[in-house]
């Protein structure tokens, strides 16, 4: 097809030419487009790349006072829709003492931004933001000292505000530009540089609008999928017919009648490249290839049993606490055991992954929506056979990825293909490949045994979890393209700490958590939002309710009586207040009705040192159909100092809705050859009609350090729901997802746990 000459294509391209997305702020103007400053700034940024300081220990890596008094902030973490683009400038502007409208923000470009680690684990603000706060504090201290010297006034009589340093008592000062404009600080981040009193912050704590929202609502943001590079070709990769299959033969004549199609084969890596996208799509569909048999997958129904019986498992005691009480449990104590299972799940991004690479012998530029812009540099350098500093990765917005979807794989596809064809290549994945081949949230099997006495004291607790070894926080996720093409890999990404929060956050007697690390697991495991914690909290907080029911105690009071952490208590008390919690044991009084109604809650102290979150739910369960209707979700959330309350709220809403979808509907299905849940019918998501009302209470602690808010609220969702269903019906759900069939089975008294 041809496009008309007036196509607005070129102007889009120039917005990003040479560098990462830039954001400028025009305060008070919610409609200011992203990239208002981008055209000129991007070009000067490309020129600046050669002179950038990238050492994350240096102040100059994070910020510069420009000659005109504006400030540029560079951040290695990227905005995935979670709002770092406003929150980090809020932090930097406040700490430095300048207006937000003077800040230009640059993110995620290995040639321009310091390596602050992968944007993951909810550390965007808690770590990335705090590095930038410290850089700003160090810079402010230096500016004040310079001003003291030049004004002949003691430093402690000066303040930095509105981009200038002035005597506290008033009078003439010096602007930041006059003090250092255009020059480097040449300072290391000073951990002792004093931070401002949180009381004095004027930007931190405000629900300022995210600068990319107007562009996202009007179609003017250039996503990864929209980006173009001159001379770029379009490719589709053809994945094996079965997991682990090898390419036997390719019949290139099958695409001979499609204009300009080139078939690229490198060992088991197979792709078609064309001048336009639609031709590439048609070629991928038409290309005939023969594949060997695959390496096989286990029978899905047997997966929990196979995890438990997996050979070569190594055991690790994660937590252990002996009891000081040697006496045998009293007669009224009740002992229980239960088994919980969480299936493999997909990241299920709404946009299949896309990337562009331009690779030559001299170096590589890769545009990607990956959360690991910097983290991918060594990985890509290795399989491309280039020095690390010759590989530049530039982040562009993609469809939300929540961990590691196929963004990295698409980028590797593009890189391998660009090198093969000697031109920039854009790779767009299909829906089927995205759901079929993205690395998966791993399966988790969890046993818990415990004893509670009549007073509600947990005398004994033991958690055993069976989880894939390659989720142990090791850098171990291989990328598909280099694997298929037989290229050496230094995998640079890991799948998150999935073993955390397997212990109860309450007072107990003897307690032990044991991980059984599995040598192998089907499909590639990867971090999926709140890695592992939704399953662990599901088991721990469901089991706590099972103990409460056995002891005929109110589950909320049981939690309060066992909590020693005051911030933990506060969120649970807040939930009690929000839900007008009536004290009684579960199940509730109408649990034998055709439609049972109930309430439940769950709590987590995320990773033991991050946010405190309690979630409560009200549900209706129809016995005849097994359908669960989640009517209302309540959340009390304490993530310390809140930088941007609306941003935090959006993240909490997203965490709850996405996890409800996972808990009610999602499970990767597979036959003995391949993944079979490859479209939105076989892998369905929560719909608008199914999304409940949300009541969220954010507890701000301005004088505490800010903690991650991007995923903690995912963790308690499943247990809160299972506990509410038990309250509504007396049936206990121990396997995710809570499909109507599983609910009916549980109501019929059958264990909802597959045979193990």
């Amino acid at each position, binding site marked *: *097809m041809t496009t008309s000459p007036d196509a607005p294509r070129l102007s889009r391209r120039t917005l990003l030419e040479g560098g990462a997305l830039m954001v400028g702020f025009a305060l008070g103007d919610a*409609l200011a487009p992203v990239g208002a400053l981008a055209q000129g700034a991007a070009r000067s940024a490309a020129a600046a790349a050669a002179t950038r300081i990238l050492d994350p220990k240096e102040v100059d890596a994070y910020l510069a006072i420009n000659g005109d008094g504006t400030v540029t902030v560079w951040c290695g973490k990227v905005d995935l*829709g979670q709002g770092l683009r406003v929150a980090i400038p809020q932090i930097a502007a406040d700490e430095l003492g300048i207006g937000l409208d003077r800040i230009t923000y640059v993110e995620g470009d290995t040639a321009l931004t310091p390596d602050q680690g992968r944007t993951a684990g909810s550390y965007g603000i808690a770590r990335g933001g705090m590095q930038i706060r410290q850089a700003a504090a160090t810079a402010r201290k230096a500016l004040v000292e310079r001003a003291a010297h030049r004004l002949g006034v003691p430093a402690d009589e000066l303040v930095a505000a509105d981009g200038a340093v002035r005597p506290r008592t008033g009078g003439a000062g010096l602007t930041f530009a006059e003090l250092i404009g255009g020059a480097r600080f040449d300072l290391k981040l000073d951990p002792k540089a004093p931070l401002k009193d949180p009381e004095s912050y004027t930007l931190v704590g405000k629900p300022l609008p995210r600068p990319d929202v107007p562009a996202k609502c009007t*179609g003017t943001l250039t*996503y990864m999928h929209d980006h173009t590079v001159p001379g770029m070709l379009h490719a589709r990769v053809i994945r094996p017919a079965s997991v682990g299959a090898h390419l036997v033969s390719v019949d290139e004549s099958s695409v001979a009648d499609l204009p300009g199609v080139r078939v690229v084969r490198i060992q088991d890596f197979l792709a078609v490249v064309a001048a336009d996208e639609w031709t590439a799509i048609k070629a991928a569909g038409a290309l005939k290839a023969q594949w060997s048999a695959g390496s096989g997958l286990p029978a899905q129904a047997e997966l929990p049993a196979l995890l438990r019986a997996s050979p070569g498992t190594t055991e690790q005691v994660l937590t252990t606490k002996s009891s000081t009480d040697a006496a045998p449990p009293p007669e009224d104590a009740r002992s229980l055991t239960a088994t919980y299972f969480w299936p493999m799940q997909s990241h299920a991004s*709404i946009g299949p992954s896309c990337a562009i690479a331009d690779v030559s012998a001299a170096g590589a530029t890769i545009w990607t929506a990956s959360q690991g812009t910097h983290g991918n540099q060594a990985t890509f350098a290795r399989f491309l056979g280039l020095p690390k500093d010759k590989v530049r990765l530039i982040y562009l917005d993609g469809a939300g990825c929540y961990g590691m979807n196929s963004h990295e794989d698409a980028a590797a596809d593009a890189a391998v293909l660009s090198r093969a064809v000697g031109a920039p290549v854009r790779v767009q994945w299909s829906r089927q490949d995205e759901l079929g081949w993205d690395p998966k949230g791993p399966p988790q099997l969890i046993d818990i045994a415990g004893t509670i006495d009549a007073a509600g004291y947990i005398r004994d607790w033991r958690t055993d979890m069976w989880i894939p070894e390659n989720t142990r926080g090791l850098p171990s996720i291989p990328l598909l393209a280099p694997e298929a093409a037989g290229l050496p890999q230094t995998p640079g990404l890991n799948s998150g700490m999935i073993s955390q929060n397997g212990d109860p956050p309450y007072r107990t007697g003897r307690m032990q958590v044991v991980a059984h690390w599995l040598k192998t697991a089907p499909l590639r495991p990867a971090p999926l939002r709140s890695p592992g914690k939704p399953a662990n909290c599901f088991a721990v907080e469901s089991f706590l309710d099972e103990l409460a029911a056995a002891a005929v105690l109110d589950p909320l009071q049981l939690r309060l009586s066992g909590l020693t952490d005051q911030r933990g208590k506060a969120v649970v008390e807040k939930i009690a207040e929000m839900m007008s919690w009536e004290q009684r044991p579960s199940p509730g009084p109408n649990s034998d009705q055709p439609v049972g109604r109930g309430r439940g809650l769950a709590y987590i102290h995320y990773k033991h040192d991050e946010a405190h979150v309690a979630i409560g739910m009200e549900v209706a369960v129809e016995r005849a159909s097994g359908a669960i209707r989640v009517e209302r979700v309540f959340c009390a959330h304490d993530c310390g100092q809140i930088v941007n309350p609306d941003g935090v709220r959006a993240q909490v809403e997203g965490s709850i*809705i996405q996890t409800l979808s996972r808990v009610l509907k999602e499970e990767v299905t597979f036959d003995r050859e391949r993944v079979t849940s490859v479209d939105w019918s076989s892998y369905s*998501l929560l719909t608008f009609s199914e999304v409940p009302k949300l009541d969220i209470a954010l507890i701000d602690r301005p004088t505490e350090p800010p903690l991650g808010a991007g995923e903690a609220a995912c963790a308690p969702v499943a247990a809160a729901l299972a506990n509410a269903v038990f309250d509504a019906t007396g049936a206990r759900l121990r396997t995710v997802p809570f499909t109507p069939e599983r609910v009916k089975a549980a109501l019929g008294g059958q264990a909802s746990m597959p045979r193990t």
Partner: protein
Amino acid sequence: MPRYDIRINGAARTIETSDPDQPLLYALRGLGLTATKFGCGLGRCGACNVLVDGQAVQSCMAPVASLEGKSVTTLEGLGTPANPHPLQAAFIAAQVPQCGYCTSGVIISAAALLGEKPKPSEAEIRTALDGNLCRCGTHVRVVRAVLAASGQEG
């Protein structure tokens, strides 16, 4: 090469393609109108929705040839950052998008609904949007924004 005359965002355009089955989605994106997104190509997610004579249509399923003589509106055609459509303004005010990949299709579906029913109930809004998937979980804000855009503060 076959040519098709289609009104796109108010302007008469001619699309030339050797393949009349080429979905509208690719023709639009080829014209630089990239607000309309590829989500599944299977008619199951709504990311590619556009208005065709006022109705929400999945552009990944609509062959270019079927659009001859019709009027297509994409998100770019609804409004601009400086002069947004009331729905776009409401989505901005409610800070709806997270990744925003679904947002274009969601706003288009909502525009089709408001075209038919200027003051829909909350349940009608939800039903009208059931063909639009959002993975980031912006649903509650979407509903609030559509209520606000229709003059019913959520």
